[in-house]
């Protein structure tokens, strides 16, 4: 009964609180060009997010001081905005990793989805 309508709501609920850390994790190895970052996340079907919805997310991360942006000249077209992890962003990511592992383990155990 509560099937088709529930699924997008579930995906939204699961995404909330985790997607921002996926963004931070993607910046862990170095700064990234915004369009490229957004394209890669938008292409992850399981995350069920359009490229456009990632900009408000990036904007929040910027306001929170977790990411910083800078402009770099491009050989084609306008200058490109690059996103980089800040010290606070890296700390937030580290904290999330611990929390996530604990959370995931508990849910897996209760729901019965442990990998064997």
């Amino acid at each position, binding site marked *: 009964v509560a099937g088709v309508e529930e699924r997008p709501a579930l995906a939204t609920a699961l995404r*909330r609180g985790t997607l921002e850390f996926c963004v931070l994790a993607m910046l862990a190895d170095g700064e990234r060009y*915004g369009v490229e970052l957004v394209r890669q996340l*938008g292409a992850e079907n399981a995350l069920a997010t*359009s*490229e456009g919805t990632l900009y*408000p997310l990036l904007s929040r991360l910027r306001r929170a001081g977790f990411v910083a942006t800078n402009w770099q000249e491009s050989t084609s077209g*306008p200058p490109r*905005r690059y996103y980089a992890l800040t010290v606070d962003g890296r700390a937030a990511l580290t904290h999330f990793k611990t929390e996530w592992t604990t959370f995931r383990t508990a849910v897996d155990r209760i729901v019965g989805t442990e990998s064997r």
Partner: protein
Amino acid sequence: MTQAHDQLVARYLEAVVRAAAELPAHRRDDLVVDLREHIESARADLVEGAGGETADAVAAILRRLGDPVAIVNEARLGLTPPPAPTPPMFVTAPPRARRRLPVWGTVLISVAVAVVILCVGTMALGAVLFQQPSRESPVSGTPVDAPSFRPPAPTPS
């Protein structure tokens, strides 16, 4: 051709602005600037690419960006709160059924403690009253003096 593509983009951004009417102005401006930048960069990549910029390719950029309303809904959200948010001042009382067990537990523990105190107290009193003669001179004065505090036996009248 490019003018037609510009119009496509302009219509999309107008739809974003309309959907974002209730957002604070700076948030709305941030959002539109971000999306415009994305579109311009993506279009520049098209021009660089082999296929050039076609209407389909521009439409695809906008389609991947997604529904303006969904984007604005995302912009309404806050970040996940940082660790340890302050607890609310007033919490609604938990349902009665969940509290009952702890209350019973407390009552049981209280009764048990009372019984133990009574038993130990009785034994201690008994020890003081009845073992007195066998003790010569304890360090503490109280047990020695204890007999003098005994009320005199009622004299039969």
